[in-house]
């Protein structure tokens, strides 16, 4: 399989580009922020995503999804445009990460229809500390026919409005153990569940979620009891690859804005883009983003073909997309000069969004460390 988008994927990209830029450009995000919107995204827009078929990209045809052999490459095509336009959307958590976890589980019939129609929003309650890690300390004790969940999660994007929370909890062993983790599907109306939304630097809303003896039935378990790590890894691989694609959009959008600015801003009587000092910074940035783009597409293709090397490729993609997009937004503000520091100008929004996505599902250092361990050092 060649490592570039095929004709169908290119057509989807063109469709997604027009659709996202048309319905949710940066001004859409700015308007939500200025209105102190309490949802964190537009529910109308989420329905439109469903009408476009985007929310069914990863859902199998038998479950009402698009089928057509679509996968992570196609989901990434949509996410890149979300990134480029800084569009607030539950697409990554719901239609990518949650769908990947629910696929093949008994819970899919309950949740897929709402995801397909753009009614349902899912959130991921994974992180327990400020830095993403592999440890799961939150407990789920057996209770009657089901389990009782106690503990706290943080950085739960859309957690305060999600209909469904996917929760990693420990049913056996110690926090650092690989086994003994179980993944639960918890409905928003469960008693004892509290979500405390916090506005983040990028004006998105992420919750600190508290589980105060939340009772769930045995059928809330996704995958195996104590063997949830397998399905959690599927969820995370999808989420990380998706976040990497969104980062490409954020970095690419910042670079495009910046290169355009270099072609219109004059100082000393000439366009500043004619200065070699700036040309070299921009050209270096281009190279970093191109390399990241290749790494992300490689991970998407390997996930889609079920290749053994997918896990490591996902870490390369998330780390490299983080490194390249971080450079893109920093260079973006620097090369815009003073105007890049103003709230009125959009480039600063790119910097804020990049920081949030870079942290999501593990930053570049986390993934570099993961690769190092996998290579025996």
């Amino acid at each position: 399989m060649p490592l570039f988008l095929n004709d169908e994927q290119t057509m989807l990209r063109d469709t997604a580009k027009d659709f996202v830029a048309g319905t949710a450009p940066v001004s859409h995000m700015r308007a939500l922020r200025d209105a102190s919107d309490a949802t964190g995204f537009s529910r109308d827009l989420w329905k439109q995503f469903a009408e476009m078929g985007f929310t069914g990209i990863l859902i199998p045809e038998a479950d009402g999804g698009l089928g057509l052999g679509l996968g992570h490459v196609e989901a990434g095509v949509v996410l890149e445009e979300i990134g480029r336009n800084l569009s607030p959307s539950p697409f990554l958590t719901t239609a990518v990460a949650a769908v990947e976890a629910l696929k093949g589980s008994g819970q899919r019939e309950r949740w897929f229809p709402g995801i397909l129609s753009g009614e349902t929003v899912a959130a991921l309650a994974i992180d327990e500390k400020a830095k993403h890690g592999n440890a799961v300390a939150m407990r789920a004790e057996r209770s009657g026919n089901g389990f009782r969940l106690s503990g706290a999660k943080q950085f739960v994007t859309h957690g305060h409005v999600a209909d469904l929370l996917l929760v990693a909890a420990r049913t056996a062993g110690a926090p650092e153990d690989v086994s003994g983790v179980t993944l639960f599907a918890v409905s928003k109306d469960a008693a004892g569940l509290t979500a405390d939304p916090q506005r983040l630097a990028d004006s998105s809303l992420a919750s600190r979620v508290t589980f105060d003896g939340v009772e769930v039935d045995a059928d809330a378990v996704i995958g195996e009891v104590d063997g949830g790590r397998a399905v959690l890894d599927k969820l995370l691989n999808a989420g990380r690859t998706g976040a990497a694609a969104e980062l490409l959009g954020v970095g690419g959008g910042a670079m495009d804005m910046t290169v355009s600015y270099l072609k219109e801003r004059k100082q000393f009587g000439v366009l500043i883009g004619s200065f070699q000092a700036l040309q070299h910074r921009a050209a270096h940035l281009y190279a970093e983003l191109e390399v990241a783009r290749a790494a992300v597409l490689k991970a998407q293709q390997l996930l889609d073909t079920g290749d053994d090397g997918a896990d490591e490729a996902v870490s390369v993609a998330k780390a490299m997309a983080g490194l390249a997009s971080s450079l893109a937004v920093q260079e973006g503000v620097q090369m815009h000069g003073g105007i890049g520091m103003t709230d009125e100008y959009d480039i600063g929004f790119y910097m804020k969004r990049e920081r949030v996505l870079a942290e999501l599902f593990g930053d570049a250092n986390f993934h570099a460390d993961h690769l190092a361990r996998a290579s025996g050092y």
Partner: protein
Amino acid sequence: MSDLDNFRAETRAWLEANVPPSMREPVRGDADVNWGGRSADYGKNPDQKLYMDRMAARGWTVPDWPTAYGGGGLSPEQSKILREEMQRIRARNPLSSFGISMLGPALLKYGSEAQKLEHLPRIARGEIRWCQGYSEPNAGSDLASLATSAEDAGDHYVVSGQKVWTSYADKADWIFCLVRTSKESKQGGISFVLFDMESPGVSTKPILLISGYSPFCETFFDNVKVPKANRIHDENKGWDVAKYLLGHEREMISAMGLGLSSEGTLVEIAVERMGLDANGRLADPLLRGQIALHEVRARAFKAMSERFLDELKAGRAHPAQPSMMKYYGTELNKSRHELEMAAGGSDTLEWESERSVNGAAPRAWLRTKANSIEGGTSEVQLNIIAKRILELPGA
């Protein structure tokens, strides 16, 4: 099974049976690279010749060239499978040659049928080793200002002048060379010619480098007779050929960043020299972090190289993308060698000892410093990206 699956299965079986075990070992230095040519010495490693001949017999030293010219006639998909299967068993490149990576593509595009038939099969079989006569003392980054003259003498040219930084000119059999056939125009007065390095009037003088080795030469031409039949493309149109060829050179140099045959050696060296702590991690946490982040970029660049080749074969690559590949690949290669030196500590400083294999590591480290200079400096590549890809305004 699809045709491509069949091809993969057959290729895998053939490679397993025909790639000698010693040709699956990592390339540790220039002695492990087979450059072919009249003066090649296979005495120390006869497997190099055996492996090259077996591959050449299938056209697999140049898998995607047409079979009429000694190639394998493989489609882009088949070539990719061959590359993947070679990587799988860590097979070395059977033949490294400027004939394959630079002159060949230019001949395929601009050469006459007679020129193709004369030169391409001999390149494919590793019989002739080529060198590149481009840079001159006063024409480095500004290559088109070259002055080596070719005077018209009827059926031949008389070539006089000097080239510099000619890689392995002292070991090469033939040279492809840029010469000035007109002073009317800078780029439009250059022609592209081929001649035998044994022609009367050719002499070479190796340049001693900081590595203690002399991979480059000064090359002198004193009234060298070059038949006009050896000119590629039209007179005064050599710059077109040169630019096309430079793209392939950048591609080749960028491939060094891939470290395909030396994949994993940085980590192996670091583990061997520094050891692991009780948690199974490199004993030096700061260097471990630097190596881990380097490996992220190296693996991402490996994907980039795959993407670039796929796009190139499909005619979808931006014409200036080789500049990006060259820039990134060479900077990555330099960084890898810096980390290898840091990981090796004072052991890797030994310059002549037997256990350092005559200072292979420090000499290789120093050699990489030329990567971002030769074939157009990193700064020249950034200029090209800025102008041709980002379309930033001229100064």
